[in-house]
């Protein structure tokens, strides 16, 4: 029998501490929609998505009402369009982006991810055409998200793709300069991209996945922070880690319950729960505040990387026991513009891009939602991507870059995207040129870590 204390704890978590299910993401394979005629392929894509996902939003709303836990986003991820477009090469792949947009609007999801290409070892099929079309695709759509995997521990880093992506990121921002450069906020450049990630903008449906699958991403930085605020006084760091673990367990149980319910009601298999601490710009729902609660004056100070490493590990240890299947990115996110504490730290100059880079070595993602000066060269962006990919490649983990060149703006100015994407200051980035390094191209060979057999 559940007791009053437990009931009140759950209700406080949901009502006061922003506990929510961040996303229920339906992964849909489009492999059976390939066609040499791009218009026919688009028709098949539209019909498959609309038929498969027609109940996604109503079912999630129903679960939300019954369980009383908010499900913030309902999303769709699809097979990387670079693969689907291979059958209709030399035709404009933006047609696929417009089709995804139309399908997303029809079924009412918040985002659709998968305008993607996997090029860690080289370009195949329509990959190159797709990548070159990303700036236009993201400028003419609102709900479509794009990602490109340019490296992996097994393959090394495709530096030709890295060089290209620097230009693409910049072009995405330029094409949407009148809308706070939002195009670049919908594009992620990955190393070791997971096939089952439910979070945007990097979600796509990997080729080894089933036809349709339900993945769930949980949230809850506010709950962890509040547990630390209430119960961590006098604890040493072993005790703090234990407290985070216990809280992460409870958060993840919510995700597991919702994932099972959604899977049962929609009639598609449950894939994974992504054990992530995903912040929102809401005050209190911040990963930076957790680090500060652990004992730092401000996120970005010395000690930030160590505290984050402990947090990330404790979240995984607590979550893994709570879910039957775990996957995706799983760990703490550190997107600057989406986290009130990070925005503050970046604004007062306590948090730099270099510190964020160190932090990405011990948490689940990478340099995420960082505004950089609009005059940053494509080569600098490419080199930033290469640095981040190297961290991922060597440490056998996912890393990513989602930076937004703030066109016409400089350090101290601000970009405001609104909603979950938040707002934040333009941060300083090294201006010394890596142009010669980037122009060499080629492949950084896979590291020794890849030879595990």
């Amino acid at each position: 029998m559940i007791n009053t204390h437990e009931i009140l704890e759950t209700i406080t978590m949901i009502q006061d501490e922003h506990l929510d299910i961040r996303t229920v993401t339906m992964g849909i394979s489009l492999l059976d929609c390939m066609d040499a005629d791009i218009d026919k392929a688009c028709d098949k894509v539209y019909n498959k998505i609309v038929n498969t996902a027609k109940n996604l939003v109503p079912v999630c709303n129903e679960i939300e009402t019954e369980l009383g836990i908010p499900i913030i986003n309902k999303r769709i991820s699809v097979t990387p369009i670079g693969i689907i477009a291979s059958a209709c090469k030399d035709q404009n792949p933006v047609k696929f982006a417009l089709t995804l947009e139309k399908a997303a609007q029809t079924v009412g999801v918040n985002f659709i991810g998968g305008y993607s290409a996997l090029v860690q070892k080289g370009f195949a099929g329509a990959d190159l055409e797709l990548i070159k079309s990303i700036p236009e695709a993201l400028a003419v759509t609102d709900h479509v998200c794009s990602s490109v995997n340019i490296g992996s521990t097994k393959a090394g880093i495709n530096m030709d793709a890295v060089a290209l992506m620097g230009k693409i990121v910049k072009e995405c921002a330029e094409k949407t300069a009148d809308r706070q450069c939002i195009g670049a906020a919908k594009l992620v450049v990955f190393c070791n991209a997971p096939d089952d990630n439910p979070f945007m903008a990097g979600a796509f449906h990997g080729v080894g996945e089933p036809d349709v699958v339900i993945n769930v991403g949980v949230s809850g930085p506010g709950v962890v922070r509040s547990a630390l605020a209430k119960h961590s006084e006098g604890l040493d760091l072993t005790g703090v880690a234990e407290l985070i673990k216990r809280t992460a367990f409870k958060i993840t149980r919510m995700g597991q319950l919702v994932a099972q319910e959604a899977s049962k009601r929609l009639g598609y298999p449950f894939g994974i729960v992504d054990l992530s601490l995903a912040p929102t710009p809401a005050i209190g729902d911040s990963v930076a505040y957790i680090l500060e609660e652990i004992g730092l004056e401000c996120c970005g100070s010395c000690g930030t990387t160590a505290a984050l490493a402990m947090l990330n590990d404790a979240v995984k240890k607590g979550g893994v026991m709570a879910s039957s299947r775990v996957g995706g990115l799983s760990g703490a996110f550190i997107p600057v513009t989406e986290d009130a504490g990070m925005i503050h730290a970046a604004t007062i100059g306590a948090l730099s891009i270099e510190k964020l880079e160190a932090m990405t070595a011990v948490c689940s993602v990478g340099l995420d939602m960082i505004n950089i000066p609009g005059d940053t060269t494509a080569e600098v962006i490419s080199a930033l991507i290469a640095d981040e990919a190297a961290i991922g490649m060597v440490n056998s983990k996912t890393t990513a870059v989602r930076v937004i060149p703030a066109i016409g703006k400089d350090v101290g100015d601000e970009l405001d995207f609104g909603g979950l994407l938040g707002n934040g200051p333009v941060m300083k980035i090294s201006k010394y040129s890596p142009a010669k390094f980037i122009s060499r191209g080629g492949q950084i060979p896979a590291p020794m870590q890849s030879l595990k057999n």
Partner: protein
Amino acid sequence: MRAVITVVGKDSVGILAKVSAKCSESNVNVHDVTQSVLEDMFCMIMITDITNINKSFGDFSAEMDALGKDMGLSIHVMHETIFNSMHRI
């Protein structure tokens, strides 16, 4: 199947009566009630059986929400599963 109804707000006459009347009208059986009044703050937790509920759970929840708004209280109805999954292995 059981649901948990929580009522929090300023104390006034007839809160329990009105909430339980709504339960009765919806054929929801009240199993257990815990309530406390701290200064003038009223807090009640009701464990109910919704097996034979005569409307959809969503409608019941919406009606309770509306009743709460009328009375200046916050009333939430949640399935018991969420508490069990969070607090029991």
